Structure formats: structure tokens, C-alpha cells
């Protein structure tokens, strides 16, 4: 029973703390990106997508396919550095994932407009089961396909004792780009239309906005974000290649959207970082106490945080409280 003793003994090292903080921010970035996808889909279509993890795995698999299996379009740019070729392939894969998102919306979600929210959420569980099985089949016997990430396990910088793997920087930079792009997107005409639909669907349709297109767009956007999250979840050090477990990663982002509030973009980002940083820091400083707290307790931290937050704020930090009418 020395969890706090262990904490004090290790906290004295500032470098370790900063290293772990960056680690946590990087993990938080992945959670934030995944959570953003959840929230965008939820905000515009009122659907809580349990298929998010499966879409993330699809995205990661597409990257693996384009980079390592097909080497497309990288083969036309042999001169470029590997990092750039990887990013180009990743962009192609992410676009392909957005098509998957739109297809799901068109086939499964569109017929369900107006049905109870839980029924639609359950449909996404069905989709999740289907997609994950296909991915399992595609992964084949090894159950693992490498993404050919340019940020290998030994690609890191040591800044005055603080160890910063480059993949962490990539994740953090990506989340910044994603958030900025989203903010800009919501100011465009179509972004405004999306916000209007989310705010009041009927009023938006009365203004000539096609709700169907907005729904498709929301799912495409959600799938893009899921795929980006899936990529980072399946490259070192979070994972080594796409596996069945890649889909699971998104389930750990659920607590992020609950903490932030189901319908808050801001909340998703904050929630993601809260979960990521606390998971890494608590996991590190209480590592010595795993005998007391149990094997794999770090995986539990997001859920425990979520329960604690819910008891204090049932609609999250930034979520809108539901107005109940008879």
C-alpha cells in the first residue's frame, strides 16, 4: 500500500514528469480526435455512433493498404521523403474512409430518421459488428497489418532530458490542425448550414438547407476524424499495426465525450486531453501500486473519471442540459 509513496518518489524528477505530460498530451490528442468525430455526428444527426471504433479501424486498415500493401500513390513520388509519402497515402485513405461513413449514413441511418435515438444507436452497434468482422477477415492470419509509419520506435528527440518521440509531436500537431480546420469549416457556407441544422432541423430545412446532405456530410466528417484517430491508435507506441484492438481504442474515447458533454466540440477536445493526460500520469505514478489497484487499472481511469464527472455534472463540462417537457 504505497501508492502515494511511489508518487512522491518519482515526482521529484521534473524531466520524467514533462516526458509523461507530453506522452499524455499525445494520447489525449488521439482521444480528442476520436471524440470530435463522435460529437460532430451526434450534434448534427443526434446519433451516438458505436461504430466509430470500427470506422477508425477501417481507416487505419486503408492506410496500411495504401502504404504497405499497394504503395499508392507513393509509388509515383519515389523522390519524396517517406514521411511525405506516408501523409499523402494517409490523406487518400482518410478520404476513402469518409466514403465509408457516407455509405453507412445512406444505407443504415437515413431510413431511421425520426426513430428513437436508442434504436439508431443500436443499429450502429450492428454496423460495428459487421465492420469489425470484415476487418478481421481482411487482416488475415497474422491479425496485424503494419502501417509503415515514418515515426518509428527509435525516432525521438532528447531535449534536455525530456524524451519526445516524434510520433507524439505528429499527434499533437494533427489535433491542432484538425481543430483549426474545423473552426474554419464551420464558418464556411456549408459549415453554417451544418450548424443551423444541428440547432433546429426544421427551421434549417425551411431555409432551403438539405438536411439529408448535411447528415451525409456529418458522417463523412465523423469518419474522417475516426480514421485519423485510428491511424495514430495503430502506430507506435499505441499499437503496432492495425489489429482487432484498433476498433477498441474508440471505446476508450467515450468517457471523453461524456466529460466534455455529448454535444460540445470544445468539450470533446478538453475531455480528450483530460482523459489522455490523467491516464498516462496516473498510470505512471501509480505503476508501483498495480498490486493493490489490480492489473491493467490504467485502462479503467477514463471510466472512473467519467463516473465521477457524471455525478457532479450529468451533462458534462460543456454539454447542453436537456430541457424536459411533458
Amino acid at each position: 500500500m504505497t501508492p502515494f509513496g511511489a508518487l512522491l518518489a518519482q515526482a521529484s524528477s521534473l524531466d520524467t514528469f514533462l516526458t509523461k505530460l507530453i506522452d499524455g498530451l499525445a494520447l489525449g490528442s488521439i482521444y480528442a480526435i476520436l471524440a470530435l468525430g463522435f460529437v460532430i455526428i451526434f450534434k448534427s444527426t443526434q446519433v451516438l455512433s458505436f461504430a466509430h471504433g470500427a470506422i477508425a479501424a477501417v481507416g487505419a486498415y486503408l492506410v496500411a493498404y495504401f502504404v504497405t500493401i499497394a504503395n499508392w500513390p507513393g509509388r509515383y513520388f519515389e523522390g519524396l521523403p517517406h514521411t511525405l509519402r506516408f501523409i499523402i497515402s494517409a490523406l487518400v485513405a482518410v478520404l476513402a474512409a469518409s466514403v465509408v461513413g457516407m455509405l453507412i449514413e445512406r444505407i443504415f441511418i437515413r431510413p431511421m430518421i425520426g426513430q428513437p435515438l436508442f434504436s439508431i444507436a443500436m443499429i450502429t452497434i450492428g454496423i460495428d459488428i459487421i465492420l469489425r468482422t470484415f476487418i478481421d477477415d481482411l487482416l488475415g492470419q497474422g491479425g496485424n497489418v503494419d502501417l509503415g509509419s515514418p515515426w518509428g520506435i527509435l525516432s525521438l528527440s532528447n531535449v534536455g532530458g525530456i524524451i519526445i518521440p516524434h510520433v507524439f509531436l505528429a499527434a499533437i500537431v494533427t489535433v491542432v490542425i484538425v481543430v483549426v480546420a474545423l473552426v474554419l469549416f464551420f464558418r464556411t457556407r456549408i459549415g453554417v448550414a451544418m450548424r443551423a441544422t444541428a440547432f433546429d432541423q426544421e427551421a434549417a430545412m425551411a431555409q432551403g438547407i438539405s438536411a439529408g446532405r448535411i447528415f451525409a456530410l456529418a458522417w463523412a466528417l465523423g469518419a474522417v476524424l475516426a480514421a485519423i484517430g485510428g491511424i495514430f491508435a495503430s502506430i507506435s507506441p499505441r499499437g503496432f499495426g492495425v489489429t482487432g484492438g484498433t476498433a477498441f481504442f474508440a471505446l476508450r474515447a467515450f468517457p471523453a465525450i461524456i466529460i466534455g458533454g455529448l454535444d460540445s466540440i470544445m468539450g470533446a477536445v478538453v475531455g480528450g486531453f483530460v482523459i489522455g493526460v490523467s491516464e498516462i500520469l496516473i498510470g505512471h505514478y501509480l505503476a508501483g501500486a498495480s498490486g493493490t489497484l489490480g492489473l491493467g487499472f490504467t485502462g479503467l481511469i477514463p471510466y472512473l473519471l467519467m463516473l465521477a464527472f457524471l455525478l457532479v455534472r450529468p451533462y458534462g463540462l460543456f454539454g447542453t442540459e436537456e430541457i424536459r417537457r411533458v
Partner: protein
Amino acid sequence: MRGRPLLHVDYESEQSLFPTMAQKVILTIGALLALSIPVGVVPGLKFLASPGWLQILVIALIFMVGAAGLNIVTGMAGQVSLGHAFFMGVGAYTAAAVSGHPTEALWGLELPMWLGAIAGGLVAAILGIVIAPTAVRVRGLYLAIVTLGLVFIGQHVFRNWNQVSGIPELGREWGPFQLALWDIDGPALDLSTDGEWFGVFLPHEGKAFIFMLVVAGLFLLLSKNLARTRIGRAFAAIRDRDVAAEIMGVHEAKAKTQAFAISSFYAGVAGALYATFLGFLPPEQWNLFLSVQFIAIILIGGAGTTIGVVLGTLFVQLLPRLVENFTGFLEEQIVGETWLAPLADLIIKTGEGDFGILSLAAQGPGLSIFQANTILYGLLIAAFLIFEPLGLYGIWLRIRNYWKGWPFTY
């Protein structure tokens, strides 16, 4: 006009469990048919009398108890719960501690199974009451995610509380699946050895089947009865519009707590029986997929109805084996080169380069039978929700209505 399902001439008939003669007759025939399964005398059902099928049927009956529990909280009271697997696990490990065999590393009191099952139900119910305040605070999809968290927390506890649940991935042994009043050495009703009952030879799975048929029947009747009590009506009021229910005088927090408690009791008993019947399970068994399975059962069967629970459980539990047998049948057609062979060849991938959706080799581009089953499962969940939100019960309603109005369309 007597005996119409929707025509009630007095309050008593509206309130009765089985209002029409036809329902009573169908129920009796169904019960008798079910009882005859392990004996294997009814022509169409003979194949079910093998130990392999009986085992699946016993598990289906146990699942019916669990599904009836989820139906109470989700179908009747409208509270979405993904935490059913957690409550089943609680029940199972309580039963393990009560009726399991103790060793140096494992707890066990070696008490009879029925005590374990009831204790499992009670402990699960108590935990349901403990969880309820959170469930009262959050609603709808938030509740779904909270209960999802419950499954993960449960998994963590089960994996680490080794005295109760054994080592991760290895698990522990439960007590015997026996009906003994008190003394564990002399069962009142021997369920775990093959033998004769009333002059009929039964494999032990057959005995377990008859025992579970009685238990499941009891639990289903109780849950059906619950719907017409004061508590059940409060559940329906909460489900349909909670604020309106409160205005009418239904205590929302109390009703939700009751729903969780009763549902968890069912789950606990089901978990205890499931684990005891299988005899040996790792702590990983109580996972999200199990919860999803129960949700699928009540959605496919038809949420809120008892007949839906029965139909849904049978459908979900028997489907994998049926698909497996069907592919086995198709394979025989190809091998035997019957007239069905070309059709079967389209579906089954027999070798490299052969077209087919299903691959019997479980690797390569074709789907294995297990994968096909899983995909079918996902598709069915989606298809039922899109095309028939009332589930199998809804299909039954349509058939009934068709014949009610026949030869007119309506």
C-alpha cells in the same frame, strides 16, 4: 366475438395473463412440446434430443431468464442498459463463492446451487440499487455510456479479485449443477449424470433442460405478471414520458431503482445458472459482447413483450448452429454432387480460386462460418430495427392481423 385478442368485455379479462382461449391452448401445446424435446418423441423435433442440441437449448433457456431481466429495465421501464453482463458476472461470482469448491486460493462454501443462484440474484439486485442513483441522474444515451463503463469496471474487478473469480483467462470452477435441498452429496434431483427419469432414459443435458424449462417458465411468468402490477405500470409510465409520470404521482427515482433492482436480480440468477451449468469460465466472459447479445435478443424479439423475449432468445441462440449446419449441408451437396451442388458452390469456397462467400478453411479471402455468423448477427440487428422495430413479435402481430381480417386486407 369471444376470444378476440383486443376485445375485452370486463376488467378481469383485460387484466388476465392469457386473455384468450387460443393463447392458453397454444401455451399448453408449446409447453408439452418443449417438455418432450429431450425424450425425442415428436417427429419434427427429434434431432433436438442429442446432447449437443440440448446443451444449446439449456443455455438458451438460461439466456431467457437474463433477457427477461433486461426486458424489464429496457423494454418496460425504457432505461437503456448496456451493463447486463456486469450484473450477470456479479451473480455468477456470488454463486461461485456460495456453492463453489473451496481451495487454498479460491473461496467457496459448497452450499447447494439454488442458494448460490438466489444469492447471486440478491447481490446483483443490491448492486443494481447502488447503481440506480447514477442512473436516475443521467438519461438516455448518457445512461447507455455509464452502464457501458460499468461493464469495464466489472471486468477489471473480476480479473483482479482472484479469490472469487480465479486467475485471469483461466477462471475457476463452479459448484455442481445439481438440485439438492441442503446436502451437496445427495442431490434431490440428479441433473449431472445420465439416467432414467420416469422410465425414460435422458442424457444429463436433457435433465438440465427440463429443470431449466421449469425455472425459465417461472421467471417469464413472473415478468409477464409484473407488467400488470402497480410497479409495472409505473415502469410503463416512466418509459412513455417520465415528467408526465411524475406529475401523475409516480415516484421516478423509486421506479427506476425498482426496475434496476428487479432486472439485476434476473441477470444475477441467469449469470449464476449459466456459469454453474458450464462449470468453468474465465473472468473475461462477462464482457460487452454479452451485453450486446442481450440487447440484440430483446430488440430482435420485440422490446417490452415476454413472447419477444422467448422468440428473440431462441433466434439468437440457435442461429449460429443453424448457419453452421446449413453450411455443412451445402458442403455435403458439393461433395455428393447433388442437384443443389451448383448453388452450394456459389456460397461456399471450396478451394483456392473458387468463388464463394464462405470459406471452410477459416482463412484467406472468404469469410469463415464464425465470421459469417457474426456479420449475419450485425445485419439482423440493423435490419430488424430498420424494417421491423417490433421485432419477431411484430412479425407475429402482422401474421395474426392478416388472418384476422382475411380475406379482406384490413
